[in-house]
């Protein structure tokens, strides 16, 4: 309700409501105060009168108490007949310091006085009821008490009458204030209404050159002067704004052209970048392939070297055997074969044949192993691999690289561990890690140690690859797996080895790889990939 009233838009209504509200508030406060004052005084008078009357009666009851005259006391109490508020009164005489009832008075209903009459020593009205006890003095000695029970109906009556009178007065004052407000608001608001009319005209016509004239000679006159100043300012700003808007419009037009031009340039740049990226990706792919081929080349070189020795021994043994056979043939033709010579021939032939056979078998085994590694490296097919044997074969294939140094490689692995993996990818991982250690970690180190520790559980194979080489700084370690990051730029390093390892582990073997290192404390790779146990 009040909120709805506050939403009233018209000022004159607000003004009227404000005056009425203030008047009502002031009247309410004044009336409440007046009512409280009147009520307090009336109540206080009633209490004082009751106390006075009772004291007078107590005074007059002294002889009756003295002479133990019940009739006299009752006769005296009849004085209450004229006091309408007294419903009951009783006189007590002190016998052995205890009050004993001597006489009483009841107006209509029988009222039983309470036992604790001495507690009502204060004249205090509570809910129109007052219980009061005063002592009866005889010769400076309390000889008895008089107790009075009063019901002051006149207090309620007085309160009702006061409220009615105050309410009527308030209503009359409110009506009067409303009438005066209505009368004065017309006079007061006339200049304001005029001002509103002018502002509406200005707003409608957008004519800021208009100026107000003849708006009274009071505050509204000052308001009209201020309004005129404001109009001047608005007019000035309006002009300025129009100029600015024109400038902005022109700027917008040129800006659109600029944006279009820049957009075109950006589109061209994007196309160039996309092309460069494509070339880069192709280059990267090519480099990866090159790296793979380099790895394969290295393998081939290793194979050639490893096979060369047994084949050479085999050829030598075979040549010796041929020589022995030719010598035997000459001796046979000349019939000069002795038993001892034949025995010697047989022993040497057997030894040469054994040497030849052993080395040819070794060569065959090497070729078989290298063939598998070569096949693995050139294909992504999965097969069952005994990890321990496979790592050893890979290391064997790398021996030509290790031959010129005194580095050692130790492998700790469960001999029975066989998993189904992409063997070629796994070979590339081990090859790259070992080659990185040889090329980078053991630079300037004669006796380097590499440890490959393979553990496994039901689901995963974990490999800890560790060298005791130069190690890396943390800043370099962060970039270890980034493509083209190398410390051997222009010295043969492509910067793709570790990146290739990372890609093979994470994508080819669906595993994870992390590296930890400190400068001069070697480098450790933690590799984990899922296994499919055969």
């Amino acid at each position, binding site marked *: 309700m009040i909120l709805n009233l506050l939403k009233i838009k018209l000022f004159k209504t607000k003004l009227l409501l404000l005056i009425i509200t203030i008047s009502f508030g002031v009247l309410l406060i004044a009336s409440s105060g007046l009512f409280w004052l009147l009520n307090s005084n009336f109540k206080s008078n009633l209490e004082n009168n009751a106390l006075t009357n009772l004291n007078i009666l107590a005074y007059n009851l*002294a002889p009756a108490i*003295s002479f133990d005259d019940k009739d006299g006391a009752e006769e005296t109490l009849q004085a209450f007949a004229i006091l309408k508020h007294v419903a009951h009164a009783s006189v007590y005489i002190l016998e052995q310091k205890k009050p004993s009832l001597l006489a009483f008075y009841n107006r209509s209903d029988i009222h039983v006085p309470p036992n604790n009459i001495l507690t009502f020593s204060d004249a205090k009205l509570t809910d129109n009821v007052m219980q009061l006890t005063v002592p009866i003095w005889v010769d400076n000695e309390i000889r008895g008490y008089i107790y009075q029970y009063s019901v002051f109906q006149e207090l309620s009556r007085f309160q009702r009458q006061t409220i009615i009178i105050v309410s009527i007065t308030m209503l009359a004052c409110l009506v009067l204030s409303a009438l005066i407000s209505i009368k004065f608001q017309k006079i007061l608001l006339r200049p304001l209404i005029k001002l509103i009319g002018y502002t509406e005209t200005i707003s409608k016509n957008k004519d800021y050159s208009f100026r107000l004239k003849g708006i009274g000679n009071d505050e509204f006159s000052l308001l009209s002067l201020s309004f005129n100043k404001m109009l001047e300012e608005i007019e000035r700003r309006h002009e300025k704004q129009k100029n600015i808007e024109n400038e902005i419009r022109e700027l917008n037009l040129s800006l659109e052209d600029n944006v279009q031009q820049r957009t075109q340039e950006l589109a061209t740049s994007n196309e160039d970048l996309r092309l460069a990226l494509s070339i880069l990706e192709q280059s990267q792919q090519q480099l990866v392939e090159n790296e793979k081929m380099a790895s394969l080349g290295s393998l081939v070189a290793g194979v050639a070297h490893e096979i060369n020795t047994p084949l050479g021994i085999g050829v030598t043994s075979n040549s010796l055997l041929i020589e022995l056979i030719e010598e035997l043939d000459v001796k046979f033709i000349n019939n000069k074969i002795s038993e001892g010579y034949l025995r010697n021939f047989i022993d040497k032939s057997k030894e040469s044949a054994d040497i030849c056979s052993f080395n040819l078998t070794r060569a065959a085994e090497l070729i078989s192993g290298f063939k598998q590694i070569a096949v693995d490296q050139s294909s992504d097919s999965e097969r069952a691999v005994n990890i321990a044997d496979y790592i050893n074969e890979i290391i064997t294939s790398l021996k030509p690289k290790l031959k010129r140094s005194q580095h050692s490689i130790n492998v700790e692995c469960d001999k029975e561990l066989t998993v189904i993996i992409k063997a070629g990818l796994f070979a590339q991982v081990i090859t790259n890690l070992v080659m990185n250690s040889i090329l980078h970690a053991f630079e300037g180190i004669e006796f380097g140690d590499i440890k490959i520790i393979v553990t496994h559980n039901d689901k995963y194979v974990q490999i800890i690859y560790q060298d005791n080489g130069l190690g890396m700084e943390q800043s370099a370690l962060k970039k270890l797996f980034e493509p083209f990051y190398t410390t051997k730029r222009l010295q043969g390093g492509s910067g793709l080895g570790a990146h290739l390892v990372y890609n093979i582990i994470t994508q080819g073997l669906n595993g994870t790889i992390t590296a930890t290192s400190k400068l001069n404390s070697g480098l450790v790779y933690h590799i984990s990939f899922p296994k499919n146990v055969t």
Partner: protein
Amino acid sequence: MTYKNLIANVNTVVIKLWLVISLSLFSEATLANEEDNQAKLTAAFIYQITKFVKWPSIVQNVETQTISLCLLGDFKSSTLRHFQLLENKVSQGKKIKLNVITSSIAKRENIRCEIFFAQQSEWQNYTANELEALSKQSLLIGSTREFLQNGGMMSLVLVKNKMKIFFNADVIAKTTIKIESRLKALATML
């Protein structure tokens, strides 16, 4: 008259005599009891009355701060016993002093007391004029209504075993003694 009749007559006479003697003895005892009760009540009432009466300063014994109660005439010791209980009792801050004298001595020596109490027979020794003069400054208390009719001031009369206070309005109007209105309100004015 036979011996039996003689015996019967004697018995009748004896019984009648016994009855007469018993009744006379009982009535005497009752009378004595009533007198004693009246004396007791009278003494008590006089003491209470002293609390509601103020005497002019010339009468009051300022030096000794006492209220003199003069009992006129001869009183039985049983009666006097109740009045003697008032001796040295305090009323309005003053002690009560008891004097027992005859009216002739009182008159001869012009004795002044705040209160004079006497039986009707003793008050008869005073003329109306004497009573009027005496009542100017003293409270004169009798025990019958006749006392008031003869010019007395106040009587304490036993009515239906209750002591009633009677005043002579004319005498009260003339006296310089101030009797509180609340006492007057309790009393009966004649």
